[in-house]
């Protein structure tokens, strides 16, 4: 299917916080109570609409274990958005956010939009991190924040879509150089057709892809 833009996302955060489950809920609208372990990286894709434009999200779901950090670092390149996930029932996953953020800022382009996500909001009785703490952390570091539940699907759509909206606004404001693919944004055939200033080759390349 034709799309106006393609955004690359990366999902990061400690192991077991529910990164793969968030992705599965977003792409397949289902929850798997026992998800396979992610080794290396897995992928998802979905089309969304913002401001009447079709936007394809290409999502990189990474392994969370500390040992894999050096591998994960190489996947930030060319990401337009990052979902930084912690588990509201495990304080340590919240405590590690600073190192994740350092990594993300260091290895991505400076305009990458980062959404902080406190996942497992359905497990209120086991909560170890208050919502206010997440909000404060996000405010302090200039991130968008949301609590989600991959299990009940609460806020999952919003988390992915609001991130895209933020990226889209940055494009409108001219913050992103959309012709530089290192920014994690590609222009799709839909857009290229209506925008004569763009080179044909870019649109042509994308046209080869199917839908998601």
């Amino acid at each position, binding site marked *: 299917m034709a799309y106006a833009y393609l955004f690359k996302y990366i999902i990061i955060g400690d192991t077991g916080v529910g990164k793969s489950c968030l992705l599965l809920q977003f792409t397949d609208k289902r929850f798997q109570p026992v998800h396979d*372990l992610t080794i290396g990286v897995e992928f998802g894709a979905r089309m969304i609409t913002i401001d009447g434009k079709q936007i394809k999200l290409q999502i990189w779901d990474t392994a969370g274990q500390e040992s894999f950090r050096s591998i994960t670092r190489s996947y930030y390149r060319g990401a337009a958005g990052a979902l930084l996930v912690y588990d509201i029932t495990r304080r340590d996953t919240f405590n590690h956010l600073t190192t994740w953020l350092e990594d993300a800022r260091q290895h991505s382009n400076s305009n990458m939009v980062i959404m902080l996500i406190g996942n497992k909001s359905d497990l209120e009785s086991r909560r170890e991190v208050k919502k206010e703490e997440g909000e404060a952390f996000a405010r302090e570091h200039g991130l968008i924040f949301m609590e989600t539940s991959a299990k009940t699907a609460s806020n999952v759509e919003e988390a992915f879509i609001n991130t895209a909206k933020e990226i889209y606004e940055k494009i409108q404001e001219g913050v992103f150089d959309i012709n530089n693919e290192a920014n994690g944004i590609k222009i799709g055939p839909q857009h290229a057709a209506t925008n004569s200033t763009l080179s044909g080759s870019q649109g042509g390349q994308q046209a080869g892809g199917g839908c998601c």
Partner: protein
Amino acid sequence: LCMLWWLNVFKTLTLALVNVSRDCECSLKERSSTRPQAQVSVTRRKNLEFEPLSTTALILEDRPPNLPAKSVEEALRHKQEYDEMVAGAKRREMKEAQRKKRQMKERFKQEDSIANAMIIWNNDILPNWNCMRNTRRVRELWWQGLPPSIRGRVWSLAIGNELNITPELYEIFLSRAKERWRCFNETILDNDVQADRESSLDLIKLDISRTFPSLFIFQKGGPYHDLLHSVLGAYTCYRPDVGYVQGMSFIAAVLILNLEEADAFIAFANLLNKPCQMAFFRVDHELMLKYFAAFEVFFEENLPRLFSHFQINNLTPDLYLIDWIFTLYSKSLPLDVACRVWDVFCRDGEEFLFRTALGILRLYQDVLLQMDFIHIAQFLTRLPEGMAPDSLFSCIAATHMISNNRKWGQVFSALTKDGNKEIANHSPALRS
């Protein structure tokens, strides 16, 4: 149209229909020239013993009283169509029966050959392991897949025990691990211990529940839960410098399925001690890139079209190889296929892991050539479920690990000697 739709529901109805067909034929003759009475229809419906679906009714029943009756020709035609369908169903049933018979024959043949192979392994090969293991006959038999009953033993022998680990040593490390778990449970709220959580203990617990979840044997309460916990725990005490790294739980699980506890540990520790596994589990990024670069040399050699398709799409081998190598395919391939890969991996070493990767790419080459980046990435990180071992193995057999007269080991060591200059910039060294 009616026929087509009918064919779809035919499978489920065939048996019932064949039984009642004689009844229907009779009633059809009786009523073909006269208008039907509602009463007749109702009793016949009862005879059918199932609620006739719309098309059954169309063919077998006369029209409702408010519509003109079927003409003789039409009734005859319907009867003929109906007979054809019944005959068709019978033909299909025969075919199905023949297929089943062939399948059974194939299975018996396979079971026979496994039984035969088991005798050969038990009587000839295993007692003379050292002098026979490299003979052509044994290597060929090995390629066919090891009989499950001796699989663990052959793996153990082939992996060896360079580390000289004894069952007693395993017990020592296991009791150390148990001691640590006890301390951990007692001081779970202590912040110092919290720092250690992610590195081993808690993580092992979390990951065991995510290891082959569909088998339901390693999860809490399952028969192998404690075993897997023990082997991984003992390993982190044995090699604290490596610790527990994700992916290990899959390797330990496959070994536990084929070996006794202490033997599984010995094989596990020795397997992880092999250069390729050490490079990966220590996440030595530099060295991993060299493995990927060597892989790409053979990728280009074996599948040049797919290779350039991947290059155009920026699809680097780390995206799929990391998962495959870390878990030795046990997570990505069906377990029976993975075990056959392990068989030959034990025979041929690390080279076979990369040869298998090329076999998978060859097997799916045609579909992969039609895909763009994201579809290839998704496809390779979640391979189709119903992969037949024989088709994979014929693709692996067609993959030759020779490039410019150089073997895997030579290509790899040339890359490690070259230093980093060629590999430094993301796209690994390809041309020598």
